[in-house]
């Protein structure tokens, strides 16, 4: 990790970084590096930045509104003169070594000319095709065929979902084009690739949640009122599909009995993931509290194995959920969840009293395991980085090199390397950025030394400065 010039390189190392993933990790690292004056290429697969944090309602342990603390970052990233933001884009290949990586990035067609689009939103308003938003709203709400992910999207430019667009599928409509005041709609757009050369790479591809379909014992994704944590965040979010009112998916009624199941798919070496997903004890306590803040006469139950609230003020946070909001914490696993009439039956146990418990719930929220995104594995393969049995990208070691990888110049930040919360993610992002800034500073120093040597101004003295 010395960052020396490669022997065969006659060009200078490039003091520019490619950051793959524009969630909170990617954005933080981008800002740290850009604010130091170096150029950043920030790529994200989605139309706008913010990753999963953009879907959250409030964050633990402060219950800060996620958008309120994140939008300063997203706006800064969107405006920063040193950050080139390529959203709706994917990295196709990366060759090269530290100092000179060559990345090919594919720009997917939005079918909207973003240079001309003003983000007025008329197209979305007029579009007649509604579809369930499986990605951003996690199935809890709908969007149009031409859409932005959220009201605070950066860039605030829409994309057309080709699979659901009436023009692409049936040759009809084109209403968005008719109403667009700047003529930004362009159905002929094609994907194209750009080649970029950078000196360092940060992999910040983030996480996904373990799919409900894999948990047959919990309904296998077929029971409408069994949802995961991100879906519940959307129900809680004031800019979400229910404007922050907690409504159950099956019939829209306000649930009065909500069961939260921790470790759904985690700590389960027999059937699912063997590891602990770290954030669920905290966000479940958060969910129980936020639920009670909205539904005063509701009852929340939490089935848990342990409470892992290891962080500053984390334990106090969980105690609040138990004491201030009357959440009933039951120490035991849930064995089965199924539909019965309009209720969802939860069979669990309370090991502290030795009793089995059956709850006829209105809504069940599963704290599902965090898993690495499939794109993370693709990027790891592209970069020849090792991954573990559950496809998490491996850092150089688990002890004192959490953000470095075994390849010089390639760093990790955030959930790409394993489950973690926002504070740890941001710390890692700044850590990776720091390592890269250190490289760039050294390269600059070496460049200066070389230039001075070429103009023969006491090279030896300067080389050892």
């Amino acid at each position, binding site marked *: 990790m010395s960052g020396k010039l490669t022997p065969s390189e006659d060009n200078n190392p490039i003091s520019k970084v490619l950051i793959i993933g524009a969630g909170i990790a990617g954005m933080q690292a981008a800002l740290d590096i850009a604010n130091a004056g170096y150029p950043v290429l920030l790529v994200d697969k989605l139309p706008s930045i913010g990753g999963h944090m953009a879907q959250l309602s409030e964050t633990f342990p402060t219950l800060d509104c996620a958008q309120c603390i994140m939008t300063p970052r997203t706006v800064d990233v969107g405006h920063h003169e040193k950050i080139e933001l390529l959203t709706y884009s994917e990295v196709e290949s990366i060759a090269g070594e530290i100092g000179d990586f060559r990345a090919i990035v594919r720009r997917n067609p939005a079918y909207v000319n973003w240079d001309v689009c003003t983000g007025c939103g008329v197209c979305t308003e007029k579009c007649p095709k509604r579809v369930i938003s499986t990605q951003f709203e996690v199935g809890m709400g709908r969007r149009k065929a031409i859409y932005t992910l959220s009201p605070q999207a950066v860039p605030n430019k829409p994309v057309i979902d080709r699979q659901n667009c009436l023009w692409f599928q049936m040759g009809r409509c084109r209403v968005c084009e008719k109403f667009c005041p700047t003529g930004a709609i362009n159905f002929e757009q094609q994907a194209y690739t750009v080649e970029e050369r950078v000196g360092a790479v940060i992999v910040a591809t983030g996480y996904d949640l373990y799919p409900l379909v894999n948990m*047959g*014992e919990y309904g*296998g994704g077929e029971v409408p009122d069994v949802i995961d944590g991100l879906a519940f965040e959307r129900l809680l979010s004031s800019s979400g599909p229910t404007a922050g009112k907690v409504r159950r998916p099956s019939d829209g009624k306000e649930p009065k009995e909500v069961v939260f199941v921790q470790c759904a798919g985690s700590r389960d070496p027999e059937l699912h993931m063997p590891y602990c997903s770290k954030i669920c004890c905290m966000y479940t306590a958060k969910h129980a509290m936020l639920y009670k803040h909205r539904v005063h006469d509701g009852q929340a139950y939490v089935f848990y194995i342990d409470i892992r609230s290891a962080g500053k003020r984390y334990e106090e946070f969980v105690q609040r959920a138990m004491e201030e909001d009357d959440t009933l914490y039951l120490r035991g696993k849930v064995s*089965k969840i*199924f*539909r*019965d009439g309009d209720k969802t*039956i939860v069979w669990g146990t309370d090991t502290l009293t030795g009793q089995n418990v059956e709850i006829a719930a209105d809504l069940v929220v599963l704290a599902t395991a965090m898993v690495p995104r499939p794109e993370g594995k693709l990027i790891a393969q592209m970069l020849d980085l090792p991954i573990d049995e559950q496809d998490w990208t491996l850092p150089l070691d688990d002890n004192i090199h959490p953000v470095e990888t075994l390849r010089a110049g390639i760093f990790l930040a955030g959930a790409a390397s394993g489950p973690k919360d926002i504070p740890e993610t941001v710390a890692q992002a700044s850590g990776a950025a720091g390592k890269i800034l250190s490289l760039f500073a050294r390269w600059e120093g070496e460049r200066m030394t070389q230039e001075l040597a070429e103009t023969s101004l006491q090279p030896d003295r300067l080389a050892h400065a």
Partner: protein
Amino acid sequence: MKVPYFPGCTLNTTAKGFDNAVRASAAALGVELVELPEWNCCGATFPLLADNAMDLLGPADVLYKASLEGERLATACTTCYNVMRRANYALKEDGEILEKVNYFLEHDSDYEGSVEVLDVVQILRDDVGWEGVRQAVTKPLNELRVAAYYGCMVVRPPDEVAYDDPDNPTTLDDLIEALGGQPVDWPHKTECCGAYLAVKSPQATQEMSYAVLSSATRNGAELVVANCPLCQFNLDKQQQTMAQRHAGYRPIPVLYYAQLLGLALGLDGSNYDLDKTIIAARPLLERVGLL
């Protein structure tokens, strides 16, 4: 095709009707189940013993005898299936145990773990196929709503015995559909009927069977089919006193899948013991046109 067959003690005696139905319907579908010339009890108490080799002697002996007849061994009794699958798994996992068991058995040759134990239902699914079954049906079930009850034995422990999804198996549901019936979607497909608890605590068994049966009726079933003699016994017998403990309880007949299959194939069911159940099935079967 011929497949070596292990009836087991129960299908040889109290559940002979099930055995007759299995053999006859398999034969009608082109599968001749050839009983092993010599066999003994499968073990049955496998999960109850702590000694890690003794309990394997019974099933290992059966497996050895089966290995002389072929590479597969079919059985219809789900406990026999469960025990022999798990015994086979244990023997194949641990070379030392296999050696010890072979030493004890003192046969002319050693059992090497060559036999694959199969449930007859697996053979229907994989060798005959549901389309083959559908085409052989002469008396369709007329959309009769049937709850397929799998019990525990064919799904747990999943790594060792399951030939279907352990949380939501569908093999018997597919069979019912092939026979022209309507399989019911219900949550107690794999919940225990009470099993051996019937001996020690009949009340516990009654409550467990009640939970299963009431779930079936609540989800619209007119008939329950089982694959296990103990399940069929519990679910049937417990209904005798169920109305006393649960006011307004409506009985529902419980049959073996093979009995239904045989009748749907147009076979003569007179030796299937159809009239030996506590809750009479004949009225339903006549209504649907199977009898």
